[in-house]
């Protein structure tokens, strides 16, 4: 096994026991990136110089027997909509091409405090608006399992980076499934925490009542490690929850005997990919064998979730993206004839089509005469969707369903039909609307050899239980240790 293929916790042990040095490991990682990245295109910015400096610094700390952080020497990739001090943060948008944040996001500050090494900033759909990473203004990221397929999105760069062993772990962000869906499509683990569990300070705002930073990792225990570092209260985010953070790794192996798993009938109807269906059915059999009880439940308002989401998220986005006006940061058009002309031309030049479409849809839903029919209506149905989950969790401990209705699709296949693309998030969106946590873990492969993800949803702030449930499955299976066979052109 090559060094970069190990998990974060395995590498951590090797570093702390001085079996390997951080500097040697980081070199190994960047060699890997240089060799394979041209075929994957997971990064917008690579942070090699700073990473090497940081590695030397941590090696010195270990040599001097100083205390080191929980993520000492572990390379982590960060989605490019999360602010990193003195390192470009573009949101994959032309409008922020030159933006260098003067501050760190809360989660990035936490990474640095725990001595993690930021290897680079990963590609995404512009402003996290998309499900395939094809909406990036800079590049198209390829799925390491099949270079002709998308990695999912919008955190496609983060998921591809972990799947291709460019970094041990990564941060992504979710508004409607943007961590879980690419994690599923790339065969890695993705967590979307409870709304408020992780501070949004420094995460570039998209849909503020839905946004959450999430983790991407190679297995469930690494996910527990990373979530433990980034979770917690932050004064700078007034929606951040002041709820104690448990030790997510502690007793992660306690098993699931007596667990009640809910299977929502609405998620298993309609045109359903046969491979995904079979993988899920097999997974449930494993859970039953481990002592869980599978219970049929109903989430009756599921079919309205995508419609609600595209009103709520875009209404919030239209307001959040009003800040890109060419005044304080980012692109400004040349020789404007006046202030309004400057706003209009700056934004028309700076935003891609999907972003324009969503801003317009959001403004339409909020505009005079349409507010009640769209935004207010959607906010009411959102409440019904949350009530569905509340009722379900009175009967069951968690809900299991596919993360995505299909495995990774081909690049270009859905790019011209926004509505069809929106429907790829049908299983992930409800959790964001209800604010509940979810984890996606690998649970099988399609006939073409593409990874399939299974999603476990739980009650607010029950990430620890979700990790235990996920780990119970992972321990029994080997889907998470399978690696893509990369057919790369440049060696």
């Amino acid at each position: 096994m090559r060094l970069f293929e190990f998990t974060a916790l395995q590498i951590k042990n090797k570093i702390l026991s001085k079996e390997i040095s951080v500097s040697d490991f980081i070199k190994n990682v960047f060699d890997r990136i240089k060799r394979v990245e041209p075929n994957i295109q997971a990064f917008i910015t690579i942070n090699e110089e700073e990473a090497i400096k940081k590695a030397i610094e941590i090696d010195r700390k270990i040599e001097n027997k100083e205390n080191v952080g929980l993520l000492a020497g572990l390379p982590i990739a960060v989605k490019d909509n999360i602010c990193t001090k003195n390192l470009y943060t573009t949101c994959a948008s032309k409008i922020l091409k030159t933006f260098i944040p003067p501050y760190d996001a809360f989660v990035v500050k936490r990474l640095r405090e725990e001595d993690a090494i930021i290897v680079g900033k990963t590609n995404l759909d512009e402003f996290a608006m998309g499900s395939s990473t094809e909406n990036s203004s800079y590049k198209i990221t390829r799925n390491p399992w099949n270079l002709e397929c998308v990695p999912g999105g919008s955190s496609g760069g983060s998921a591809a980076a972990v799947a291709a062993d460019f970094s041990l772990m990564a941060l992504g962000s979710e508004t409607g499934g943007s961590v879980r869906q690419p994690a599923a499509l790339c065969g890695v683990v993705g967590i979307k925490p409870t709304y408020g569990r992780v501070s949004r300070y420094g995460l570039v705002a998209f849909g503020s009542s839905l946004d959450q930073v999430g983790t991407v990792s190679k297995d469930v225990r690494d996910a527990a490690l990373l979530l433990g570092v980034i979770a917690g209260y932050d004064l700078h985010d007034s929606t951040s929850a002041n709820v104690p953070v448990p030790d997510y790794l502690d007793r992660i192996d306690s098993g699931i005997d007596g667990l009640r798993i809910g299977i929502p009938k609405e998620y298993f109807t309609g045109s359903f990919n046969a491979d995904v269906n079979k993988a899920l059915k097999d997974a449930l059999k494993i859970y039953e064998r481990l002592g869980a009880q599978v219970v049929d439940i109903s989430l009756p308002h599921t079919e309205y979730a995508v419609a609600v989401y595209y009103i709520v998220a875009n209404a919030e986005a239209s307001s959040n993206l009003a800040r890109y006006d060419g005044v304080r940061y980012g692109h400004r058009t040349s020789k404007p004839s006046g202030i309004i002309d400057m706003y209009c031309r700056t934004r028309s030049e700076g935003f891609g089509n999907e972003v324009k479409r969503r801003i317009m849809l959001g403004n339409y839903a909020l505009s005079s005469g349409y507010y009640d029919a769209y935004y207010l209506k959607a906010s009411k149905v959102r409440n019904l969707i949350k009530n569905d989950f509340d009722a379900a969790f009175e009967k069951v401990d968690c809900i299991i369903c596919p993360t995505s209705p299909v495995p990774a699709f081909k690049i270009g296949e859905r790019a011209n039909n926004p509505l069809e693309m929106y429907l790829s998030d049908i299983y992930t969106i409800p959790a964001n609307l209800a604010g509940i946590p979810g984890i996606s873990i690998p649970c099988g492969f399609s006939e073409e050899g593409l990874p399939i993800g299974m999603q476990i949803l739980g009650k607010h702030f029950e990430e620890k239980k979700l990790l235990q449930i996920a780990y119970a499955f992972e321990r029994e299976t080997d889907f998470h240790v399978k690696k893509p066979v990369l057919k790369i052109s440049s060696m």
Partner: protein
Amino acid sequence: MKIDKEEIEYIANLSRIRLTEQERELFVHQLSSILSYIEKLNTLDTENVKPMAYTNKVSNVFREDELEPSISLPDVLINAPATKGCFFKVPKVIE
């Protein structure tokens, strides 16, 4: 829900976005199809349902009004396309 070119132009203006003729055509078609899909919400009776924006119980978050350091002025201005002294510079606003 069919949305026409005039409405598209109206929303584009609200959004401070200028569209080319080609984009206008495309958006008329795409936004109409998205809005038709969203129509399905109207099949639900929500007369007695309260709207929900935040899923956690959030009330006003207060703190003591104490002085704290903020981002320095040079850092605030560093990303601006045009500045003059300690100001952001923009085209004339009032004629």
